[in-house]
């Protein structure tokens, strides 16, 4: 990413390492987050994503490296001297305060007087459409309402950066979609930076401008959701993202930027546009997104094709995922609209030909 002088990164991680005793939770990460960005840090549990967020909030001190906020080194700054409010996984609403007092908390700590505190808190409650609950106890609210209180409480001090630690993980599925819309709209309207930690791919991909994929304490890839999905940087990301066919084989031929790779399921051509070309004889992996594979009526006309038999099918909304197997036992996934399959008789035909273009396959770095 290039830095234009007009937009300095608001958050910078420079070679940050965090060790707890002998355990290295974060193993040297570099990351720049621009003002107004919605960044999602995604990974499975124990990958270091929450530790990364907690370091940004000052709840953990980095063992090595530097964390900068708005250009200033923050390593030594205590949590209460930072302007990085957080929405917690448990929400961490204060049970002994009512809704309005919860929202006022940050202002009270900053020495704002009672009247102004109340005004500002009420404005945020109105914005979150929960002003009618202002004097209620927090445990009289529903999950979604509590979520809004937590957001209002964190945003009332008008921070430049908002941290969110899996805030939707406790909600029902239908509320999650609703809250995703609320969050996205809020972030657009406020224009502030959201740093959103989650293990859920759908949340990250639905909301974030850029997604950071973490694994084993390291950043595996940073990019726009589409780029990560279409062009995973390595095998870890490709597997993490799912809905991909990953094939590994030996490079047999290089022709321009197209590479031929011999796999147990057959030899396929892969476009290596923009990637480093592997040597002939080297082992290489590539992915084809499941929705870029199609059923081919004429295998001879395809750049790549393979003969498969159907194992099972999965039907979600109008999208169908088919699980197939080639003769040598390699698994293939095909994702397609239900109507596309309308004129293919899945039951009658025992064998299908799958096809895809060399350009839709993506060579993986290791």
């Amino acid at each position: 990413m290039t830095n234009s002088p007009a937009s300095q990164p608001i958050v910078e991680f420079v070679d940050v390492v965090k060790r707890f005793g002998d355990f290295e939770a974060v193993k040297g990460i570099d990351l720049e987050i621009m003002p107004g960005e919605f960044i999602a840090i995604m990974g499975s549990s124990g990958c270091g994503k929450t530790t990364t967020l907690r370091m940004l909030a000052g709840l953990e001190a980095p063992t090595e490296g530097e964390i900068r906020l708005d250009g200033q080194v923050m390593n030594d700054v205590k949590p209460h001297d930072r302007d990085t409010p957080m929405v917690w996984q448990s929400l961490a609403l204060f049970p002994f305060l009512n809704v309005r007092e919860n929202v006022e908390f940050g202002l009270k700590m900053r020495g704002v007087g009672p009247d102004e505190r109340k005004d500002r808190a009420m404005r945020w409650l109105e914005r979150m459409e929960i002003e009618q609950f202002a004097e209620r106890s927090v445990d009289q609210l529903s999950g979604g309402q509590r979520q809004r209180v937590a957001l209002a409480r964190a945003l009332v001090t008008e921070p430049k950066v908002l941290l969110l630690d899996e805030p939707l993980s406790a909600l029902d599925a239908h509320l999650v979609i609703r809250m995703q819309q609320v969050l996205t709209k809020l972030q657009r309207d406020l224009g502030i930076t959201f740093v959103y930690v989650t293990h859920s791919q759908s949340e990250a991909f639905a909301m974030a401008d850029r997604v950071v994929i973490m694994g084993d304490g390291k950043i595996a890839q940073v990019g726009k959701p589409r780029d990560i999905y279409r062009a995973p940087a390595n095998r870890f990301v490709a597997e993490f993202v799912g809905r991909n066919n990953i094939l590994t084989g030996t490079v047999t031929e290089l022709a321009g930027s197209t590479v031929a790779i011999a796999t147990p399921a057959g030899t396929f051509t892969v476009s290596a546009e923009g990637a480093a070309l592997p040597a002939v004889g080297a082992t290489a992996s590539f992915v084809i997104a499941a929705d870029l594979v199609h059923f081919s009526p004429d295998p001879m006309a395809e750049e790549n094709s393979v003969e498969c038999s159907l194992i099972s099918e999965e039907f979600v909304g109008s999208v169908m995922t088919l699980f197939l197997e080639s003769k040598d036992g390699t698994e293939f996934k095909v994702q397609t609209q239900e109507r596309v399959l309308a004129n293919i008789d899945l039951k009658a035909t025992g064998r299908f030909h799958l096809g895809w273009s060399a350009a839709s396959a993506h060579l993986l770095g290791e």
Partner: protein
Amino acid sequence: MSGRDALTTWVLRFYVVLVFGFIFMPIVASVIFSFNSQRFPTVPLGSFTTEWYTAILNDPDIWEAARTSILVSLSTSVLATFIGFCTAYTDYRFKFRYKYGFLALALLPPTIPLIIMALAMLAWFAKIGISGQVWSIIAAHTVLTIPFAMAIIRLRLNEMDESLEAAAWNLGASEWRAVKEVIIPFAKPAIISSMCLTAAVSFDEFAVAWFVSGLNKTIPVVILEIVTGNIDPQVNAIGSFVFLVSMTLVVLAQILFMTKGKRRTVTP
């Protein structure tokens, strides 16, 4: 078979009632005797009287002792609860070397017989020159009640969502401010419970108070001195009064701890 099981169950339940009967018998008997006209109570009981209560109400020594007892138990409850809170918070929040030693310092006193504590404190207070004062009883009772205060408050902190304190820092509260704004409000029911219970324990303690009190006798010390002399039903009257005070404190503590305890933190 099931018939025999049911029989066993009922026999066991009856047994439980007997055990509770044994435990509460002396308390109930004492209250009954305090309204009984006989000097040496027996069955059938004598007539109803309040003469024993009148007697103690007119006894200036009893009033003096009551004043001392109230001063001692109030001071003890404040001191023990304050120290217990600091200790419970330390245990909740921090890991450090010699933590087991630190906790032992808080929790050991109840395992040492009161009579030994009494002798040790008597000698020690004489040595450092504060013997025979109300403050010596308070100091001793605080040692004995810190474990209760600490345990009650520690249990309450266990129920707290760990993120609550961090959320306060995150919203701009310093560590001190977070204790004031979050930890204390959250622990408040336990703090009040702790004050009630430590006051009740102090109000009933006689062995240590007897040794270190000097002329500042507390109510239990007066009871001890009366019963050493002879059978005097006044003791039942004082005892019933003491039960009333203790029970009020204990029930109050229990109600506070139970009702507020139900208002749990927001957890998914």
